């Protein structure tokens, strides 16, 4: 008689566990980044990478692409963001193989392919650095809503820029899905990117 109660209790526990697992897996994922709803195709572009090769966004289908606009002479915000890109890539582990981190210059006068290569080699050579002519870049900045204003040269060492410092995230279908503000949390970005990589 006593043994039967144990069986009932055991079955009850198993039932509860199954219900918990079912409830957990049915809950929709909540993104940390700002959701672009409805998602729309990310504006396409072709620019030149740090090796002098053309890079077209729409060739990256099936990868999650993270885009940041900045410049190599930027003393604080841009290298800080590229360092966070590197940390995010490391957190992604093997999933990073289907993620592409992209840095697009807002300073084409100084940021040649060669300078981008030297700069990114110091931070993370897997980040793609893109440049082009003003004619190539202006439509890209406009399409992503990037503000860019050259400030007076502080001391003969070249200008600084005020600029938009968001990170844009494009999913594997080529849709612009998320954006993150400057100083984002690397754990939150890597969780969102992992979800975008694994969703189908």
């Amino acid at each position, binding site marked *: 008689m006593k043994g039967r109660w144990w069986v009932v209790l055991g079955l009850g526990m198993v039932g509860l566990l199954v219900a918990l697992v079912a409830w957990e897996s049915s809950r929709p994922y909540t993104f940390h980044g700002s959701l672009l709803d409805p998602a729309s195709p990310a504006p396409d572009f072709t620019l030149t990478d740090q090796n002098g090769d053309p890079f077209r966004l729409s060739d990256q289908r099936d990868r999650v692409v993270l885009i940041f606009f900045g410049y190599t002479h930027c003393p604080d915000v841009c290298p800080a963001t590229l360092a966070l890109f590197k940390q995010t890539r490391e957190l992604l582990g093997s999933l990073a193989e289907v993620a592409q981190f992209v840095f697009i210059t807002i300073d084409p006068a100084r940021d040649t392919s060669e300078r981008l290569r030297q700069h990114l080699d110091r931070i993370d050579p897997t980040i793609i650095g893109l440049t082009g002519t003003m004619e190539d870049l202006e439509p890209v900045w406009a399409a992503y809503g990037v503000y860019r204003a050259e400030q007076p040269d502080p001391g003969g*060492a070249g200008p600084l820029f005020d600029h938009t410092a968001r990170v844009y995230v494009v999913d594997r279908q080529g849709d612009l899905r998320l954006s993150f503000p400057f100083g984002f949390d690397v754990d939150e970005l890597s969780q969102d990117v992992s979800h975008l990589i694994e969703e189908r």
Partner: protein
Amino acid sequence: MSRRKGLAFISCLVIAATLPACNAAGGQPTEASAAAGDLRLTGVWARPAGAGETTAVYLTITNEGAQGDALLGASCPIAAMCELHETRAEGDVVHMEHQDRLELPAGAEVSLEPGGAHIMLMDLQSELAPGDLVSLVLRFEVAGEIPVEAEVVAP
């Protein structure tokens, strides 16, 4: 299925437990420090950069005295220009402002860190590689000039 969930849950726990350690390891202050009178300067570090490029020096200043002080600027032999700057964000746009002074109230710990106040070095005379030391002199209102060495730390 439930075993896979269980494994995933345990992996999450393990990853979550190790994350703070991962973050702490990246681009964080070193042991370089200096003291002069009431001011203690700790965790002085700089980002790697190439010759002709720009970098920033970050540190924490603790004012252990009973009197307020202020950081007024710096001189950096390795750079053509060296200024006290602050990054400000307005909405999505970031911009930098030259600062004439950074207040250091008595008893306060003030951090110059990425995305905030920093010493900006422009037009570097030589490359700064991880492990290099950058000599600079910080200028304070009360404490006067304090030389420090910033260690170049990989991002």
